[in-house]
Every structure is written in structure tokens, then in C-alpha cells.
């Protein structure tokens, strides 16, 4: 499979008057064509900032301080805003969390949809209109010819998110980033939107990054997962290993805090005690160590490398080190990612 996107040691910080907030602190991952990568983590874990960094849309006072984002061989962090704009909405596009506020209220859906098409293709207005109608049909909006003339306030939340998706896929992006696309929607609509995204993936043959804090959504849609915490990657895995054999205490904590009612028994949810780290002055070691039931001395001092559990699973936890004490469920491995 061909590598589409490669992120190396990405750091993104916000320079506020209180100091530097390190939202993303050195993350690496590789995305291959056709992947659906889920990025999961609680609020403030850096998942949205990661996606905005890829888009080059980190707002002032934030910026990428270190690392590279290589898309099809081009390092996006080296490009000017004008050069990046050629990628945005074209090769890389993004769907945002809140469809109610993410579409301009004073222009019609068709106007905004055609604008993107005209921006990135050589189509005439007539052709763009045809394409816009086709796109609305594709995302399941009935009577697209009529709906094209509608304004956002005449669309329901689910319809708006469909329109956002139409906008995002209008130029057949190679990479589609969806930042919590279903969070603001009703549960029944959530399922429809996810189903739509999955079916579109095959139709337009795109690679997807799906950001969410919902592990259920990830299990349903993705083939790869990254678990983020405190601006770092805790565990990176393919989907089966993550659910069957989580290798990081934080991943386990997340899985235990998902409500499940398989057997009909009443199970108490197990919360993760404590709160996420303050990214203004993050602890020097593993960001999860203050909340980790297995925390050791070294965890407070130094963040663990990504230990290679298998070819498809990596976890940033010292429990995998050969010298670590035996904890049930965690395997010992010899090397980390770089070895």
C-alpha cells in the first residue's frame, strides 16, 4: 500500500499570555491509502489540534513548532498559506464538529458548494451546478435541485452535516479529516452520517481520519486507531488488537468507561480517576502517570517510547520494558518503534 501521509515528531503550541500551551507534543504516525484512522482521546488531548495542523488551520496564537507533515512527498509545514490553500478543500478536506455553525448562514448551500468546486476545478458555472446537484444526491439529500437554492437555516442538523460532507468531498479529496462529525447530532442521525461516510469512502476512494471521543464509533468504522492523551500518542494499533488486547493503561481505562450491556447484567462503569494534565506546564514524564494505577518512578520522570507490541500495535508505556514488574495483560517486549 502507498503511504499517503506521514507525520513526524509534530509539535503544536499556543503562545498565550500565560505561556506556551503545548497542545501536541511530538506525535508520529503514517497513513496509508485507503486507511480509516480513528483518533480517540478526551477533550484537550490534542486530537483536533493535530487535524488542524495537517490542514494548516491552527489559529493565532498557535503554530507548529517542530516536526513535519509529509503529504504525498510534500512537507506541508514548509508551504506558505497560499500554497496550502491549493490543498485545502481539494486534496485534503475537513468536516467539522458543529454543522449548525460551520456553514455560512447568509449564502445558499448551492452557492457555497459551487464556490469550492469552482475554486479547485476548471468547471464552468453550469458544470459546477450539475456537480453540486450530483454531490447533494450522493450524500442523500432529497430534491437536490430545490435544496441547492436553500439556505443553511432551512436544513436540519443532519442535513447540514450531509451538506458539509458534500462540500468536503466535492473535489474528490485524497484525505478526508472528520473532526467529531457526529458529536453535535442526534443518535439516530449519527448512525446515518457514519454509514454515509463509510459508503462514500468506497465511492470516491478516499483515506479518512476520524476524530472522536467515542470508542463505539471507532470500532464501527475504522481499521486503525490512535489513542491520544495530553498531546501525545499513548497507543497506536489496528482495530482488532486495540479492543481485544489493549496495551496501555489509558486505553484500558477508556474501554472500561464505555457503557456496555451485552449480557443484560448491570455493570458499573469504571471511571478514570483524576483529570487531564495542564498543558501549560506538562509533567516531564508520561502525561497519564498521575492517573495511572500502575505508575512507576520512571513514569514520572520520562515518557516511554512507543514499544512495539506487534507489527500493528505500539504502546507508549514502561510496563512493556523488560525490567518492569509483571502486570497481568501487559506483554514485555524487547524494542520500541525506532528499533
Amino acid at each position, binding site marked *: 500500500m502507498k503511504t499517503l501521509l506521514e507525520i513526524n515528531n509534530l509539535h503544536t503550541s499556543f503562545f498565550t499570555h500565560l505561556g506556551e500551551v503545548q497542545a501536541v507534543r511530538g506525535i508520529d504516525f503514517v497513513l496509508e491509502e485507503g486507511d480509516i484512522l480513528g483518533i480517540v482521546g478526551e477533550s484537550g488531548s490534542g486530537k483536533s489540534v493535530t487535524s488542524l495542523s495537517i490542514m494548516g488551520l491552527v489559529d493565532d496564537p498557535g503554530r507548529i513548532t517542530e516536526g513535519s507533515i509529509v503529504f504525498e512527498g510534500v512537507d506541508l509545514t514548509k508551504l506558505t498559506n497560499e500554497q496550502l490553500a491549493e490543498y485545502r478543500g481539494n486534496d485534503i478536506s475537513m468536516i467539522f464538529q458543529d454543522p449548525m455553525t460551520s*456553514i455560512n448562514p447568509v449564502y445558499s448551500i448551492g452557492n457555497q458548494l459551487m464556490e469550492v468546486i469552482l*475554486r479547485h476545478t476548471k468547471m464552468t458555472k453550469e458544470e459546477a451546478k450539475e456537480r453540486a446537484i450530483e454531490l447533494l444526491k450522493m450524500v442523500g439529500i432529497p430534491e437536490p435541485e430545490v435544496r441547492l437554492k436553500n439556505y443553511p437555516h432551512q436544513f436540519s442538523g443532519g442535513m447540514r452535516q450531509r451538506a458539509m460532507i458534500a462540500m468536503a468531498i466535492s473535489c474528490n479529496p485524497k484525505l478526508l479529516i472528520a473532526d467529531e462529525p457526529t458529536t453535535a447530532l442526534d443518535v439516530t442521525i449519527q448512525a446515518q452520517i457514519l454509514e454515509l461516510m463509510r459508503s462514500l469512502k468506497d465511492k470516491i476512494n478516499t483515506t479518512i481520519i476520524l476524530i472522536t471521543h467515542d470508542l463505539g464509533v471507532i470500532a464501527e468504522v475504522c481499521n486503525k486507531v490512535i489513542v491520544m492523551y495530553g498531546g501525545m500518542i499513548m497507543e497506536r494499533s489496528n482495530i482488532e488488537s486495540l479492543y481485544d488486547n489493549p496495551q496501555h493503561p489509558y486505553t484500558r481505562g477508556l474501554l472500561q468507561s464505555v457503557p456496555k450491556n451485552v449480557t443484560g447484567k448491570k455493570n458499573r462503569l469504571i471511571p478514570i480517576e483524576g483529570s487531564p494534565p495542564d498543558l501549560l506546564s506538562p509533567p516531564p514524564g508520561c502525561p497519564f502517570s498521575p492517573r495511572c494505577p500502575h505508575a512507576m518512578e520512571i513514569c514520572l520522570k520520562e515518557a516511554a517510547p512507543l514499544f512495539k507490541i506487534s507489527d500493528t500495535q505500539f504502546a507508549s508505556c514502561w510496563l512493556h520494558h523488560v525490567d518492569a514488574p509483571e502486570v497481568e495483560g501487559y506483554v514485555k517486549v524487547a524494542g520500541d518503534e525506532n528499533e
Partner: protein
Amino acid sequence: MKNYYVQRVLYALFTLYIVITVTFFMMHAIPGGPFTRERHLPPEIEAILNEKYHLDDPLFKQYIDYLGGVVTFDLGPSFKELGLTVNDLIREGFPSSMNVGLVSVIMIIAIGVPLGIISALKQNKFIDHAAMFLATLGVTIPSFVIATLFITLIAANFTFIPISWVNDPQNVGDAIFRYIGPVIALSGYSLSFVSRLTRSSMLEVLRQDYIRTARANGLSERRVIFKHALKNALIPVVTYVGPMAAAILTGSFVVERIFVIPGIGRYFVESVSNRDYTVIIGMTIFYAALYIVMVLLVDVAYAFIDPRIRLGKKMGD
């Protein structure tokens, strides 16, 4: 849609009627009358005057008579300006007030809005601080101070700028430069206010999610700002500009007095102390009508800018 405007016009007429009624009775409730002097007129003469102007009729009859006049666009004779009717006063005074006012309104929009946009885009940079400093001065310094400063500092030193209004300009220079002082004095406050309003509204809009979407779609920065941000940012500005235009077009007592402009601004003030009943009410009606027209224009402009308003009225949802 048509129904909506018919309805709006009917509402406007009703508002005008209320304005006339309230003004009429409040005016008559104030002690004294047009012919009350410090040195009392002989009662016989006062009686004759009152009879001539029908001031001895019962109040309600006066009211009905006046309404009858208004319907035929006759605002009655002035009690103080010899031989002139209120219609004459407006006809003679309004063009000067309107000319100066119109130039002021154009300046306010043409300078205030771009200044606000630039400030917002360069937030916390030098140009933003400089513009907002000037805008604060503009809002706080009263027009008569601006006018006086203009005359003593600028008009007095540059002879091509007339010190006061030139009624019949003999050359192109006077015809243009006579506007400078009055327009600066008249527009200072509103220009500053509009630029501050545009700035804050623009800053607010630039933080919206749909601006991020526009950028995520790869649109150029110019398109993001002038297409996606500006239209949204102008909504509060339009709200302010309508009533403001009505106030400025009807002239300012202070500015017209200082620059000796033969406008109608002074009648608003003088008619009240003179108890010049017909002028008070005539000016009030004139101002109210202009105001209502402007508000109506704002509503029409809204419909063009914001589809939520347009369709909301039509579809009722």
C-alpha cells in the same frame, strides 16, 4: 412579500399618527403659548391673535383641524416666522441640511466601514491602535469643539477653505471646500462609532466556525474576508446606519449654528422655546417620517443581507 410591505407602510402611518397625537397634546400641556411674553401683551391683542390662529378653539377641535391639515400635507403657518408656513421652512431649510447630511452619511460609511475592517484584520497592531484611538476621540469630543477647532486651526490658516457656509458659491473651490468643516463636525461621532462597530462585529465574525470552513475549503484570504465575513459583519452596522442617517439628514442645531448653514436644524430647538406650535409638530412629523422611512430601508437591506430574515417573514417559520 408584497403584503409584508403594505403592512409595514400601514404600521408606519399608524406610528406617525401616534407621534402627532402625543406631540400635540404634550405641547399644549406645557404652560404658556406662542404669544406669551415677558412683557404681557394687552389681553385684547392676545385674544385677537388667538382667534386668528384658532388657539381659542377647544383643544380637541384644534387637534382635528390639525390632523385635517396634515392629511393634505399642510403643516400650517409658523407663529413666529413672519409670513412663512411650516412647509416653507422645510422647503427652504431642508436642502442645505440634506446636502451636508448626505455628504456626511457617505463619508461615515465610506471611511468608517473600511477603517473598522482594517482594524479588525490588523488587530492589536499599530494601525488598529491608531484607528481606535482616533475613533475614541471622535466619540468623546463634542461636535461644537470639533467645529471650533476646525475653524481656528484649519480654516483660519488655509484661505481656500471657507470659515462658514457659502450660500451661493461663485467658484468650484467654495462649492466643494465649504463642506469640509460641517461634514467633519457632523460625522465625527458617527464615523467613529461605525468604525468601532464594524471592527468589533468583524472580529466576532472572524472567529465563527464558518470562516474556518471557508478557509478549510481552500478559499483565498480575500474571498474569506470580503465574501464570507463582511456580509455577516455588516448586519449590526446596517441597523445603526438607518436611524443615524435620519438624524444627520435633518441637520444639527450646533453645527448649523457654528457654520451658519441655513438648514432646518435650528428649528428643532428654537421652535420649542418659542412655543411655535406648528413648527414643533411639523418638525417632529418630518423627522419621524424620515426616521420611519430609514428604518423601513434598513429592513429591506436586512432582507438582502440575511436570508433568515427574508424567508422567516415569508414562510413564517
